[in-house]
């Protein structure tokens, strides 16, 4: 993966995970999970705006909006799905507010580079890969619209 294309926040997140042992990586993922921002008031009653991430085992919904060429990512997942919430939170914190081209340039295999495969299993990490793919697809769709 070309490090130069990775937004600073995602790069820091990766360094943070890789600096930890497997067990502590789970704890860090839990911290991310707890930090997933609540949806803004104006979107709470608009499930129609959100896209379901089919690659995830638990229900998680994402919604991308563009404002002055910058990406705003909203995600919601139930408290009973902390792993999925953690994945969503990593992406929300890492991508929100970035210019469109930086989001589109994030390597598709970023989720595999966090060292989570041993901690949560490769199959579960695939859910995050699906999430990232759908974020980028929504961004492309919004640009085209």
């Amino acid at each position, binding site marked *: 993966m070309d490090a130069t294309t990775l937004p600073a926040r995602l790069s820091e997140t990766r360094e943070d995970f890789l600096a930890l042992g497997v067990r502590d990586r789970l704890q860090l993922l839990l911290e991310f999970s707890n930090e997933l921002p609540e949806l803004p008031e104006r979107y709470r009653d608009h499930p129609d705006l959100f896209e379901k991430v089919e690659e995830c085992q638990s229900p998680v919904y994402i919604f991308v909006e563009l404002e002055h060429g910058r990406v705003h990512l909203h995600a919601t997942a139930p408290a009973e799905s902390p792993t999925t919430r953690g994945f969503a939170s990593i992406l929300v914190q890492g991508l929100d507010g970035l210019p469109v081209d930086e989001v589109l340039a994030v390597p598709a295999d970023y989720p595999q580079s966090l060292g989570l495969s041993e901690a949560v299993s490769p*199959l*579960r990490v695939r859910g995050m890969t699906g999430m990232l793919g759908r974020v980028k697809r929504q961004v492309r769709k919004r640009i085209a619209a």
Partner: protein
Amino acid sequence: MSAELDSAAKFTEYAHPERLVTTEWLAERLGQPGLVVVESDEDVLLYETGHIPGSVKVDWHTELNDPVVRDYVNGEQFAALLGSKGIARDTTVVIYGDKNNWWAAYALWVFTLFGHEDVRLLDGGRDLWIAEGRPLTTDVTEVTPVEYPVVERDDSVIRAFKDDVLAHFGNPLIDVRSPEEYNGERTSAPAYPEEGALRAGHIPTAASVPWARAAAADGTFKPRAELDAIYRDEAGLEDGDDVIAYCRIGERSSHTWFVLAYLLGFEQVRNYDGSWTEWGSAVRVPIVTGAERGEVPTR
């Protein structure tokens, strides 16, 4: 040093009431020596958000599976795992988890492959415990590691492999996946990731009984009469049958295995853990699509 059995009236209808405990039974015995409570969930972090006080976690992906070969851990790995959780060979283990004990039943099945004698499920699982307002904690459970003997895994009694299934035709098979998977519309449960089976459908002659039908709305197992109506009257199982259950990777069918073996008392029940991710990708195995069970294949 087994903990006493739960004498709940509902359980007495089941063939093996000793395999279940109620939330009430467990609440009264937390911390009792010789009893270890294990949480096993689909979500690897759910335990960390709050668990039954004193319980330990066993994760199906990262702890029960061999990291390289598609198989379960071996005797040495299992001994190391259980010892590290404070479980001795004579410990009473009560397993509970999310989603109607789906993964808890899977863990119980794997424990049973190693012949751990006293392993029980918490009827209603994590959801019922929470719904009843019983305590959860995020405190780290202090475990004193113990010695667990190295026991060879016995795959001959409750585990079926692909060749066993091929030799099984003419005997009942239960497909516990969703109707969409059974019919061949998709290869993984609705809202679940595709897990790479190349063909969709079901094993010929398998009856479709989605696993969660065995659970009541509160996550507990349905009463005996309702289970008999589903598995005997509807699916056609009879006393003395040799039954194989399967799903996608063997987890949901562990739940059905538990129901058939311990609640309904079928003596020959195996779980085909290769399940659809193996069968649906294997070369030249027969497959049926659509809602009909299909005929016994002629070879």
